[in-house]
């Protein structure tokens, strides 16, 4: 039996390998294998509608997605709008609420619990709820608007007007997920040392200066994690679209996840769907990398 240094190392770490092996096997089975299988699929044409066997098409699927599929780019644009504006508003409102709640003492726990109710609701339920709320003829939103304006204005056709439908979807997402960012920022705020605020107070800093120079820089790592989680979630936004608008009117609310679903589960174009999923994976990985690098730079700066 040869005594190579590699085998020696393996022998020495036998116990560690023994304990790590189950986790590695599970990881390979449920993450790595599907990923490799899907990558292989992305280079195939496999149309289940006709039951024809899968065939290798090299980069054809990727070429079509990147250069010929206008619907892919349009749904990606809709998704990016939801991420940039939707998550941006969630962050602003969530941070504002967290700052207010942080000043409260006794009622804070109760208020946080109440604010978290939307987060606990399943998106599919939220979708149904808002489909009814937005109804032009019988929905409570337009009824209240009409009441408040003394019958002069009865609101919009929220989910039917192509200029407003995306905003209505965005508002639903904001309603549901702002409390999540609020919670993350509130947790960050509670970890900021009070001594820093006392020192700023002694130095005569205004509340605005305290916020910009102390609170925000210290919260930034937490905020970046929050944005990253929400950006990834928004990339997957499906349930609300499916229930409220079905991607319409036209394609103004068709997100990338909804379009991917159609390709996969309505058209059963498995190769093309796999290629779409990979392009999305690359996009979201790049976004995550940008945020994580930014967070690293911030931490180094602090």
């Amino acid at each position: 039996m040869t005594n190579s240094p590699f085998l020696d190392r393996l022998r020495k770490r036998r116990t560690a390998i023994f304990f790590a092996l189950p986790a590695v096997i599970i990881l390979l089975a449920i993450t790595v294998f599907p990923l490799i299988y899907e990558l292989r699929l992305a280079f195939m044409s496999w149309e289940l509608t006709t039951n024809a066997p899968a065939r290798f098409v090299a980069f054809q699927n990727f070429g079509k997605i990147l250069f010929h599929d206008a619907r892919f780019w349009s749904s990606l644009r809709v998704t990016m709008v939801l991420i940039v504006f939707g998550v941006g508003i969630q962050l602003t409102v969530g941070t504002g609420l967290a700052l207010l709640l942080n000043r409260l003492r006794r009622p804070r726990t109760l208020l946080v619990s109440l604010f978290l109710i939307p987060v606990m609701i399943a998106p599919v339920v939220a979708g149904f709820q808002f489909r009814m709320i937005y109804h032009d003829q019988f929905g409570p939103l337009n009824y209240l608007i009409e009441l408040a304006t003394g019958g002069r204005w009865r609101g919009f056709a929220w989910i039917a007007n192509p200029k407003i439908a995306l905003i209505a979807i965005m508002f639903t997402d904001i309603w549901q997920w702002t409390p999540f960012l609020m919670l993350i920022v509130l947790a960050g705020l509670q970890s900021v040392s009070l001594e820093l605020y006392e020192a700023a107070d002694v130095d005569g800093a205004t509340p605005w200066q305290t916020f910009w120079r102390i609170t925000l820089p210290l919260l930034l790592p937490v905020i970046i994690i929050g944005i990253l989680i929400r950006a990834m979630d928004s990339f997957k936004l499906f349930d609300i679209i499916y229930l409220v608008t079905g991607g319409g009117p036209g394609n103004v609310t068709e997100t990338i996840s909804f379009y991917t679903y159609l390709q996969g589960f309505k058209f059963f174009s498995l190769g093309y769907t796999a290629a779409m999923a990979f392009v999305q994976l690359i996009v979201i990985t790049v976004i995550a990398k940008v945020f994580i690098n930014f967070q690293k730079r911030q931490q180094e700066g602090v």
Partner: protein
Amino acid sequence: MKPTKVVFFLLVLLLVLGIGAGLSREARAAAASPTPLDVIKWGYPPKFKNVTINVVGDAGHNLKPYEFWKGDFEKVGITIQITEVPFEGVYEKEKTEFVAGTGAFDVVTFYPAYIGDFAGNGYLEPLDNYMKKQPAAVWDPNPTDVLAPFWELYCKFGGKVYALPIDGDVLMLQYRKDLINNAEEKAAFKAKYKKELKAPETWQDWLQIGQFFTRKKGSKLAGQVLERDFYGSAEFAKRGFSFAWFVNRWAPYGEPYFDKDMKPLVNSPNAVNALQNMIDSLKNAPPDVLGYGYDELRDAFIKGNVAMVVQWTDVPKKGADPTQSAIAGKIGVGRVPGWEIGGKVVHRSMMPVGRVVAVTADSKNKDAAFWVAKHISYDRSLEDVSTTLTGLDPNRTTHFKNPQAYKMFPNVAEAEAYLKGVEAALADGYPEIFIPGAAQYADSLDLHVNKALAGQEKPKQALDAVAKEWNETTDKLGRQKQMELWNKALEAYKALGLIK
């Protein structure tokens, strides 16, 4: 009392209430079954050896017949196991199980647009031999009783029978007969348009009558001051089935979806004209019409907000029920409007959705599965289509010859009028694309029709885009094979007189 005891007491109370609620639901379900009518004569098969038949279909009231007639199945040794799938998820669920070869289902309920996919790929059992078994009272689903478009286009594929009908979905005209027949309105219409006010015959009439009845809050309608805005017409304009409301307008021109070489005909000048008519009609519709699916369109009509709609045939049954409808007794029905071609008006009614049942090729109990399908499709079908407990619609001559079964109407005459309307609509019936790839063809058409309705594309631009995408889909799925299947479909279209 200690807090732990209070919590315990509350938990027990909740449990008791929960069980009580469950029991009362069970009791209600048992009570809420249609009364057997004994119109169709049928017989029980020899007893099976306690087999379980797995049934799948869209969740909700259309699976109720399996519960209504549970006793019939138990009597012959069949236990029914139901899997409910959301309406939009039926195709993906069934297709996934078929592809994976799980053999999970014996009887599948599906929308006939997918018969090409399911039968063409060998997932379904041909039923011709089962139908010929004796005695006929047990095994014959009586296909001659089924209306021709439904039987020929939605139950057969490649010359063989693969499915049996359970739901005669077809679109029909539904209008407020109290308004159309109102003397004051008739006079005003005649003064404005120099012609009689009557239910729309053509799509030009549809625009004119729609415009006439569209009125603002505070103005008068049939002598009553309106408390809210009222609209002349409405459409299914939400993504999903908006294409069917376009095809209603295009099909009368006699142009099929493709020619014999699979060249799309959808961007013809007639098709552009049809789409333009649909866009124009939105001016007479509620402002949120682009968000109208089945539910919204039904409610807008039966809650008295709209003068006329084209809708599925179950809506007048719901509209006749005063507990659900604000216009009970005021609904008139008729043929979907058409176009005047060669001196006569040609009408076409789309048959979107529909439901058929089929036996899967990998079922281990095919005889029992076939009898279950036949029992639901024929033996108990009159009971199932003549109740408001299901959304199933008439599809057989027997269903049309027994108006007394439709108890939701105040009298037999109204039931007869309704059934005549449905029968006429089915005679004008026009199918969805039902060759493999139906979902992709339908999605392209629906997306671009919807874009045109939303003002994102001009009608010609939208239909050119559909033609381009249809060509891409055909090439992707294999032009030669698609062409062969389409030419078989064209023969059925011709046999039924849908095209020349």
